[in-house]
């Protein structure tokens, strides 16, 4: 296998690599939890709205959910800045490359997220305006949810692509990068996590004392709403384990190690008792519904931390060789830069010793770009100027101080009022004599 080896940014890292990695794992987990709540919340709000067509209380629930979405979405964005910054720092050669390879879709993230957020506000602030036009009311929610579902796919494609430099040459744009062997299953794994974590969030949220008063249901019992979320959490966990197995089976081999496999198994295993406890809660009488909630949350917090570490471990494994190669190439290159720089300095020194012709350096600095020795470039050639001003250096100086407009097909020459008379005289002499 063969991959492009770029060079790294030739400046030292701003902090020890280990510290940056820890910061990356922690800030990414915080970010992704809010993303889950945003995506899952939007999805649930849509589902509840549709159910609200039959059972109006669900419509009220959808509205309450929407209010959490607009808060969580803001937190998702601000929390995303830190991991983005650290990825930029630690993985510059890989991350910038993969971003460029899917550049137009990557850039589209910005307008897409903006539109999704604006839709979310339209939806929330004008809820009552649209409520009697179900097509629009649900249409806006559906569009917003569709955007919220699509945007993570772009991110997933990019963070996957950056891991596999050997795939870069075969990628032509976003679609081909998205269709690389393990993107879609990772995406499904993400979506089921979004459903899972937002269900858990809503189980807690609907369990608060204040909720009953906020929601103002007319018939619906809060306990039924909570069962509804429990059921989703239960289903999503099973889906999560299944998609997780598929992801594991299809992960490219270069990042695999026993340590990583062990971490994954450990993370997955923590979900098993949670499934059992959820099942118990679901099948028990109402007043015992929350019996195991704390334990369940404990399992998932453990799982998400382990998975975050495993994910980073896999990335480091995959890129280990690439990073070594980059470091060596960068060092070689910097040595070559230094050597060439010194050689150029020596050459310049050698030139300095030689007597210079008066006016030459001024001419090169100020005039040479537009006046070539023999060819007409921007302005007429030196040959032509010589022919016009034989024996008249003062004429050249006068023209240069305030040029006129002579040649119809050429641009006009800028004036040089700041050049001193002596310098001008030297330039004119130089022009005529060489």
């Amino acid at each position, binding site marked *: 296998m*063969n991959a492009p080896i770029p060079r790294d940014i030739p400046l030292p890292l701003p902090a020890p690599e280990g510290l940056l990695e820890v910061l990356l794992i922690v800030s990414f987990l915080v970010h992704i939890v809010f993303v889950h709540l945003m995506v899952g919340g939007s999805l649930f709000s849509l589902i509840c709205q549709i159910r609200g067509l039959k059972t109006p209380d669900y419509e009220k629930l959808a509205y309450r959910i929407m209010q959490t979405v607009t808060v969580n979405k803001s937190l998702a964005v601000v929390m995303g*800045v*830190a991991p983005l910054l650290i990825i*930029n720092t630690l993985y510059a050669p890989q991350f910038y490359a993969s971003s460029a390879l899917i550049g137009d879709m990557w850039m589209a993230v910005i307008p897409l997220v903006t539109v999704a957020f604006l839709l979310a506000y339209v939806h929330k602030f004008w809820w009552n305006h649209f409520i009697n036009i179900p097509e629009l009311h649900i249409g806006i929610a559906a569009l917003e949810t569709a955007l919220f579902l699509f945007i993570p796919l772009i991110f997933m494609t990019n963070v996957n692509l950056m891991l596999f430099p050997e795939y870069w040459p075969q990628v032509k744009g976003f679609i081909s990068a998205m269709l690389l062997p393990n993107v879609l299953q990772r995406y499904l794994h993400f979506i089921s996590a979004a459903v899972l974590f937002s269900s858990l969030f809503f189980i807690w949220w609907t369990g608060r004392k204040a909720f009953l008063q906020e929601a103002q249901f007319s018939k619906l019992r809060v306990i039924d709403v909570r069962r509804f979320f429990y059921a989703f959490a239960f289903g999503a966990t099973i889906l999560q384990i299944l998609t997780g197995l598929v992801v594991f089976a299809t992960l490219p081999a270069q990042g695999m190690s026993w340590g990583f496999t062990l971490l994954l198994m450990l993370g997955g295993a923590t979900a098993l008792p949670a499934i059992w406890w959820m099942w118990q809660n679901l099948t028990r009488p109402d007043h015992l519904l929350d019996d195991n909630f704390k334990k369940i949350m404990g399992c998932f917090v453990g799982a998400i931390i382990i998975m975050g570490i495993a994910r980073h471990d896999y990335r480091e494994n995959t890129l280990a060789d690439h990073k070594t190669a980059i470091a060596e190439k960068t060092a070689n290159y910097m040595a070559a830069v230094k*050597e*060439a720089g010194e050689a150029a300095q020596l050459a310049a020194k050698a030139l300095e010793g030689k007597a210079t012709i008066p006016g030459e350096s001024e001419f090169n600095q100020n005039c040479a*770009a537009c006046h070539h020795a023999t060819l007409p470039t921007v302005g007429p050639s030196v040959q032509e100027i010589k022919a016009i001003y034989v024996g008249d250096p003062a004429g050249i100086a006068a023209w240069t101080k305030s040029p006129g407009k002579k040649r119809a097909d050429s641009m006009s020459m800028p004036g040089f009022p700041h050049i001193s008379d002596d310098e001008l005289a030297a330039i004119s002499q130089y022009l005529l004599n060489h």
Partner: protein
Amino acid sequence: MDFPIFHIDFIGNRMLIAFDAILHVIINHALAVGALPVIALLEHTGIRLKDPRWDTLAYRLLKIIFIITTTVGALTGVGIWFSASLVNPAAIGSLIRVFFWGWFAEWIVFVTEVSLIMAYFLSWQSAARSAEAKQKHLHLGIFLAAFSWITMAIIVAILGFMMDPGNWLAERTLISGLLNPMYFPQLAFRTTLAMVMGGMTMICLTYLFTRNDFGFRASVLRLVSSWSIAWMLALVFASIWYYQVIPQHMFANIPVAVTTQEFVSWNSSLKWLLIVGLSFVGWVLWSSVKHPGTVHGAKYIASVLLLFAMLGQFERVREFIRKPFIIGNYMYANGIRVEDYPLLQRDGILQHATYASIRDITDDNKVSAGREVFEQTCTRCHTVNGINSIRSQLKKMYGDKLWQSDVIAAYIENMHGARYFMPPFPGNKAELNALAVYLSTLQKRATAFNGVQINGIPKPDKISAATFYGALPNLDAPHGVQK
């Protein structure tokens, strides 16, 4: 050189950043830094006068600020990163290495700012329940205004650094970069301009929201106009300060007459815009303090537009005096470090460009090699057919005369002398000629020029299998040429 080259030929890469950045700066100055203090001021006045109309107005204004800053405002901020890392990854990557902790601090302030604005806005109605809660709520607003200013203060340091790294070139520390000589004048200028912009924008919106209550409108307009006029006085001093520091400073770096002339014309257009604009805005504000309610809304809107134009022109001048560098004296706008030049001019840039598909130029591949040289050295600023297109530039210079490659080569070789805003050509002679040949073919026919997001990258060359990723190019070989 070290990154695949993303390129949008139609609007151009610089335009992509410029559009996003200008939008962001306008929202940040007019709706965050400058507007939030006004909201707190209105809330405070409402509490003092025990008049609920002030409170309602402040809430309505804040709702607009909230919606725009947490969507377009926040996302264009992230967008600057996205676009910069696509267009000039070498530059943004270097800045991040230097300013990591600055940006990290910025992030913490940003998180605080967003949390505060959500708390401030979402708790507005529930705070009405008691006088004590209301007072606490007002404090939230004041904190929020302070944090949004701090966010700007940090970013200005980074912008100032890009213009003039000051001592950083020698010391390479974060603090030396932050305390570069442009920092304080720029910060003073931006702060005061933002305050006037924010005040003016709030005046316009107030005008819109108080159509049915002229008495109330007059008292709000008088208050906000007095506030803004105080900042306006400060802005006059800040402009003079900025104007005195910048030119002297830049003239020292700029060698060529053309430069100075163009710069003077740019900067003097800013000067006149400032003088005329500030006089007009000052006059509008003054009449609004004296006779609020009689000033027509159109004058307020004109003032806001003038202030936006000043800001826009200021950003242009700021960008302009930075060229040809993207990080002053360290890296050129083409993403190549000053230090790299001797090596590249000796070996050729294609030898060292990771993602080039041609390394050696022959008679047969001149045009395609020239295209690659163009891609590496010119596309960060020029398109082929779009904005600032190389075809239109060549057309301006040579018109319908035959575009001769040796003439073009003679120009490019010296172009940095006459057109100082362009960096010197970073390749060797053969590449210069290939580039000129490619450019001369554009007179007749220009095939679409796409970046890697469409074309992809070539198969990596000359890397055999020693590590998992292959053996390394041996740069210790004579002349450092990759073989």
